[in-house]
């Protein structure tokens, strides 16, 4: 007996590729554009969303039978808000510089469509264990795209990865900079993040033709 049944495995693996929240469901785009200029911020954002969505899904799933359906959105918001404030406080306490970089976007996890979407679509109808897996899977799919975008934006925009100067020093002209390479300032602007998301969608759909919508 494997740790996870086949159905449970697909809960985690599907959102990574063929049912990705960002590239297929096109949710959570705003934060993917806003905080991905640095890889570190992307990773922290991905982890924060993973925590909020995993915990939130469990909590909502546990309460799913006692939440009156008329006020369920408010209840969901209260749960998300509580979790987000926890994340925010932890970041402020242990990674103050980073929390300044992420600024309002940690708070804005509340409005991340993926979270409310999973609460509504999954946690309200499934048990806590499966909801937890679903939350982890979807936030991992979200985080994966965030990290890919963050990787390219930081590498091409600043020439660094996680703050390490992998391409050389632009001021002292070492490494690639010695032969005239320059950082691409466009990569640091949000429009380029949208274009990178578009390119990821393009690559994904040209590899898997079944994902292309009829029109």
């Amino acid at each position, binding site marked *: 007996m494997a740790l996870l049944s086949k159905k449970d495995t697909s809960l985690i693996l599907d959102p990574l590729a063929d049912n990705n929240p960002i590239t297929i469901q096109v949710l959570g785009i705003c934060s993917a554009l806003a905080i991905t200029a640095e890889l570190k911020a992307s990773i922290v954002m991905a982890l924060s969303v993973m925590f909020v969505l995993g915990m939130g899904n469990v909590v909502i799933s546990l309460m799913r039978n006692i939440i009156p359906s008329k006020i369920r959105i408010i209840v969901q918001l209260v749960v998300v808000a509580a979790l987000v404030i926890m994340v925010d406080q932890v970041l402020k306490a242990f990674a103050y510089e980073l929390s300044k970089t992420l600024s309002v976007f940690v708070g804005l996890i509340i409005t991340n469509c993926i979270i409310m979407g999973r609460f509504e679509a999954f946690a309200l109808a499934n048990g806590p264990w499966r909801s937890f897996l679903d939350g982890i899977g979807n936030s991992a799919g979200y985080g994966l795209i965030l990290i890919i975008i963050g990787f390219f934006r930081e590498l091409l925009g600043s020439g660094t990865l996680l703050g390490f100067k992998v391409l050389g020093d632009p001021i002292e002209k070492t490494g690639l900079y010695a032969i005239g390479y*320059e950082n*691409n*300032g*466009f*990569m640091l*602007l949000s429009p380029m993040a949208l*274009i990178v998301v578009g390119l990821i969608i*393009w690559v994904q759909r040209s590899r898997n033709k079944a994902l292309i919508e009829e029109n």
Partner: protein
Amino acid sequence: MSLKSNLHNLKEKYKGKKMAPAFNAIHTFLYAPNETTHSGSHVRAVDDLKRTMNTVIMALVPVLIFGIFNAGYQHYAAVDAANGVIRQASLFGNFLTWENFIMGAWTVLPLVIVSYAVGLAVEFLFAVIKGHEVEEGYLVTGMLVPLIVPIDTPLWMLAVAVVFGVVIGKEVFGGTGMNILNPALTIRAFLFFAYPTWMSGDKVWVHQAVDLAGGPDAISGETILGYLAQGKGAEMSYSVSDMFFGFIPGSVGETSTILILLGGLFLIYSKIASWRIMVSAVIGALVMGVIFNGVVDAGWITETSKFYGLMSFAFWQHLIVGGLAFGIVYMATDPVTGAQTNRGKWFYGFFIGFISVLIRVFNPAYPEGVFLAILLMNVFAPTIDHYVIRGNIKRRLKRAKNATILPRDGEGKAQELKAETV
């Protein structure tokens, strides 16, 4: 066997193969193919895409040649200036010289070659992958790109930007004729946002200005708009005729207003470009210029304002400096990305001129806005067309409603219907 029949045979041999579009492209590029359409209704006209493109390129050649001379001239003028000699431009005296031409060709032609090689490679690649014919769309773009970048743009930057512009600006929308944004301006915008230090400032417009600036007398390769933006209009040594004939620093092909004007007249005469867009864009620029001049005259801003230099610039001179003339004639009139309806073209052109001067004056980082204005209006062109067509439908419906339908002989419904459809 001639090259043409050789190519034709290759085409037959590779029919249906993956590389077929590449051979077809070379064949149709060099010769007119023998194939004719056999079935279906079709209109045969001589002005096919290839001829249209070639006409535009012909209109660009004088600008390119002037750009080559000017690149050399500005370089040697800067060398002189570094030695404390101020040059006075004279067309046959010190402008049309071999020295200028060789130096200019040495710097400009690599830009042209890289632009064409990279752009056409991307086009061929997409044609082979997607299995369609190579279209001639890049021929004009490839010529425009080197003309709208600063002379010392590093070639690899240009190559990266061309790949970006052709793929993101054109191919993702479906290739030539389907693009929303002008690909040449997409390339320019990419360069501007990605490598701003190479695209603006006072060191990029003259070849090797950075090295020369180390000399005893610091030289300035500043554009006229750059001078004005810094409020140093008085230090500028260029006369109005210099601006009009183009003996000024700037992007390679944008300086000579008179040659651009001639190219524009040629395009209007050959009916390739829309005179409505050109005229309305000029009007738009003049209106905005007059408004700014009016603001200065009314004393609403003081001389200490950082916009004073550009706002007090005589309104008609906006047309002969910077990239406005080049943008209006060669970029705004792009038939794919511009407005399609005649009435729409007036709005489209007007706002290009209007917004160009607006951005030029208020852009804090870079005193030029033509390419941004045209890209913006590219996006709005379908909307403009939509409302023009809607307005037309409304007007005709109204006319149909108010039309008195005269009853013919007999009161039969058939006659009434017939009258309504008139």
